[in-house]
């Protein structure tokens, strides 16, 4: 890492720690401002700080190419410090004081829900790069991570069809994303003829570290003769002790595979993956995918961050896709005005890092391929299955009674985030 970049990084973090906005050196008149709303301190810093670096890298590259519409991009980085109400305040600050044209940010669903009313009120533009529980579509938000039908449902299909799994443990952290995902999965599994007795649902608190009894119960549940798998929506830090306990209690992936929706390369970089070989994860991107685009992206990332051991992951790809789509949309609309860009966004296509192209749909969700990978001993995933084509993100799940008639369509004449196809009415401007 060069000295200059080192100093720059220290300055960034230091200033961000004080939660003070800093602006670049470029004067404001001839620039397009890009807000970055990711936690740089607190619990979520582990995941979100990487995305801040990704956005800054994309901005640097875009500026080297001459910016957008001849204007340089100017990042405005704020630190919402893993504090959900602070996300709303910082979003307001970005939109009213810094007057940014677009915001890339949020990780947890609760932070997105906190920002949502602000971007809708001030008519801002938010790109949300993380897989989430769905059941939402806002005029002002573009969801570039996976909806449940782009991650959870294909993963369960793989377990049933390819691995012959007949019993399921749905294990998750106790908050909105796992609860909603598990509700969808439970309904889906029952529609596939899985009995109630063959589904075990378990929730644990955030940062749970003592997994002994739960892992032991999973082991028991899995030794009843039917092939069993664990579908894990366990979030963040709690995964490391969970996988350590699996390894120690000798649960082999060949006996009881665990398929995780929140475990990527970055989460695995904190553990010895030797005992975990064969456990699964479902994402739209894996670092190990061999394509020219991906190899180039990884090289650029290593170069930017100055550390060859830093991994890339799915939310980074989602950020990459979102950023490139936004650039294309601005150029198409010849304006940074929210309404014009939002309109131009629909139908925009940009290359995926895993090959093929991602498409932005009318419901502000992407069409992307779904990949399933097995953990390898080097902390990477090997792709063992992938969808034949693209899967369109579904904002409202078809498997929940409350949302099966709802669709989102932000084009005329519907122009609604929760349009009921039965009653032909729009439930309202905002989600839910």
């Amino acid at each position: 890492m060069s000295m200059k970049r080192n100093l720059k990084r220290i300055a960034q973090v230091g200033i961000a720690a004080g939660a003070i906005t800093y602006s670049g050196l470029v004067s404001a008149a001839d620039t397009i401002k890009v807000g970055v709303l990711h936690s740089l301190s607190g619990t979520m810093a582990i995941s979100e700080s990487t995305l801040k670096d990704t956005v800054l890298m994309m901005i640097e590259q875009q500026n080297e190419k001459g910016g957008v519409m001849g204007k340089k991009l100017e990042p405005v980085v704020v630190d919402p410090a893993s504090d959900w109400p602070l996300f709303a305040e910082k979003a307001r600050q970005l939109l009213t004081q810094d007057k940014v044209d677009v915001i890339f940010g949020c990780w947890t669903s609760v932070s997105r829900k906190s920002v949502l009313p602000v971007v809708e009120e001030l008519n801002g533009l938010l790109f949300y790069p993380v897989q989430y529980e769905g059941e939402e579509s806002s005029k002002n938000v573009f969801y570039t991570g996976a909806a449940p039908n782009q991650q959870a449902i294909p993963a369960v299909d793989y377990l049933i069809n390819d691995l012959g799994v007949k019993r399921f443990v749905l294990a998750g952290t106790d908050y909105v994303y796992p609860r909603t995902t598990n509700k969808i999965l439970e309904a889906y599994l029952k529609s596939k003829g899985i009995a109630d007795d063959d589904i075990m649902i378990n929730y644990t608190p955030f940062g749970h570290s003592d997994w002994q009894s739960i892992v032991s119960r999973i082991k028991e549940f899995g030794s009843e003769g039917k092939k069993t798998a664990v579908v894990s929506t366990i979030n963040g830090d709690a995964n490391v002790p969970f996988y350590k306990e699996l390894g120690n209690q000798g649960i082999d992936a060949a006996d009881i595979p665990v398929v995780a929706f929140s475990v990527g390369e970055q989460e695995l970089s904190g553990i010895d993956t030797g005992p975990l070989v064969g456990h699964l994860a479902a994402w739209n991107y894996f670092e190990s995918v061999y394509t020219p685009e991906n190899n180039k992206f990884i090289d650029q990332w290593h170069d930017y961050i100055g550390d060859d051991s830093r991994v890339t992951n799915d939310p980074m790809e989602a950020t990459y896709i979102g950023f490139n789509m936004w650039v294309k949309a601005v150029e198409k609309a010849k304006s940074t005005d929210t309404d014009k860009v939002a309109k131009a966004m629909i139908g925009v296509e940009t290359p995926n890092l895993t090959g093929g192209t991602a498409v932005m749909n009318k419901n502000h969700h992407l069409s992307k391929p779904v990949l399933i990978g097995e953990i390898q001993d080097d902390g990477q995933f090997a792709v063992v299955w992938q969808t034949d084509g693209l899967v369109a993100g579904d904002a409202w799940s078809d498997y929940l009674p409350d949302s099966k008639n709802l669709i989102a369509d932000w084009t005329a004449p519907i122009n609604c985030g929760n349009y009921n196809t039965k009653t032909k009415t729009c439930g309202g401007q905002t989600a839910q």
Partner: protein
Amino acid sequence: MRRVLLIVLLWLGATGVAGAQTPTDDPVATDPPSVSDALADLKSRDFDVKGRAIETIARSGHEQAEALLQALLDRKLVHDRAHDRIVLGEQADGGWALTDPLTGESLGQVDARAARPVIINNRLRERIRNLQAVAALSNANPLARREAAQRLVGTTDPTMLRALRERQAEESNPLVNGAIDTALNIALLRDPGSDLHTRLAAIDAVAGSLEPAVKNVLRDRATQTDAAAERNAAEKALKAIDARAARYETADTIFFGLSLGSVLLLAAIGLAITFGVMGVINMAHGELIMLGAYTTYVVQQVFPQGHEWSLLIAIPAAFLVSALVGIVIERCVIRFLYGRPLETLLATFGVSLILQQAVRLIFSPLNRSVVTPDWMSGALQINPVFSLTYNRLYIIFFALAVFLTLLTVLKKTRLGLQVRAVSQNRITARAMGIRSERVNALTFGLGSGIAGIAGVALAQLTNVGPNLGQAYIIDSFMVVVFGGVGNLWGTLTAAFGLGIANKFIEPLAGAVLAKIMVLVFIILFIQRKPRGLFPQRGRAAEDS
């Protein structure tokens, strides 16, 4: 190279003597063309094609067959893109050092992206392991033979069963024979063609086993059979197995409770000194634990080859680092605030935030990976339903050792005497010539240092990251307050009591509710006995 040609001998129906080597003068001559074809098939993306290739390699009898399968498991069989061939690859200097898979001839070095390991999935991995287990049935080591036989328990594959039967005829070790018998009896019960008499004998023979496969086959027999005698026998055996398993389950829960208790004890014991004995509400206690965990990480970075023993260096190092930081906190912040608990609370909370962010700046916000030494991995397998994980087992003993050491220091040393004197009555202690300032700093250092040692142990169980401390600060205060401020034995009792209680509630109520119930219980308890389980007289007690 291990046990060359054993697979071959097995397939030919002749069991080899362990360690047998058939010297082959010319590897090319014994190389059937099928192996190279099978290797080429491994380039396929279709796992079924790869599965057949693995089968072909295993049956080929090629002298490299076993090594090739092992290489496939170890991800050392790679696809060399430039030449579009499958070769052996060893990671070296940021690239791959390639060798010919059949002759062992070096093929030079290529770039990291020029070769990719052959991808196998769980099913293939299991298939390879089973094939290896068949070979291992003739291993010289009886433990390896037993493990191999246990791996094959539940299999219905005819070739594997044949291998088991052949081994059974030769085996003299009773442990290995037991495992083989179980495997064969299960296969017999699964076989629809077997007659009632042999099935009854088989049920009788497996009734004492706790293997899950036994339970499954018995349950299937109990529901599927038409013969009443068989159904009764199966049900009776199932009942006996369930009763035994239930006893072990209770033992399991107690072990989990003791383990959780030992973690609580480790986290709380340093606080028992700083808060319990000195009366300082130290909100930065968790961060001192975190510093200990990071010290473990740094020590492992300094000795990259010493994963097996570097923990022994990490323990004193973590003690020193945390103790020094603790003394600095005491000298710079806390000593001005004695007797003002609210201000201490706020000031130390600030210190905890500073320490967290400092760690984020130095080590980045990402979690650091602490390697678990081999002797702490895995589990002590007592029987198929009861095992004790080594890391937890060691940590229970470690927590007790730390506790006893601390107790000795406080009861038997001069520093301990002075600490107790100052904590009981500062003014009299000073009048007796004790330098209370120095004692305060050392005591706080001792408590902090022990927090650092706790960090070494916790680094083996959980994430080493900036938030490590936050997760334990509440639990630590909970244990110390519940046990009785100022009483080390109270801390011990409280830690293990809460640990075991938590683990008994958890299966009934779930992890979230179990935690809430324990907290509610403590609130109610403190209402009735505000000074905890074992109240102690001392400075802390008098101040409150």
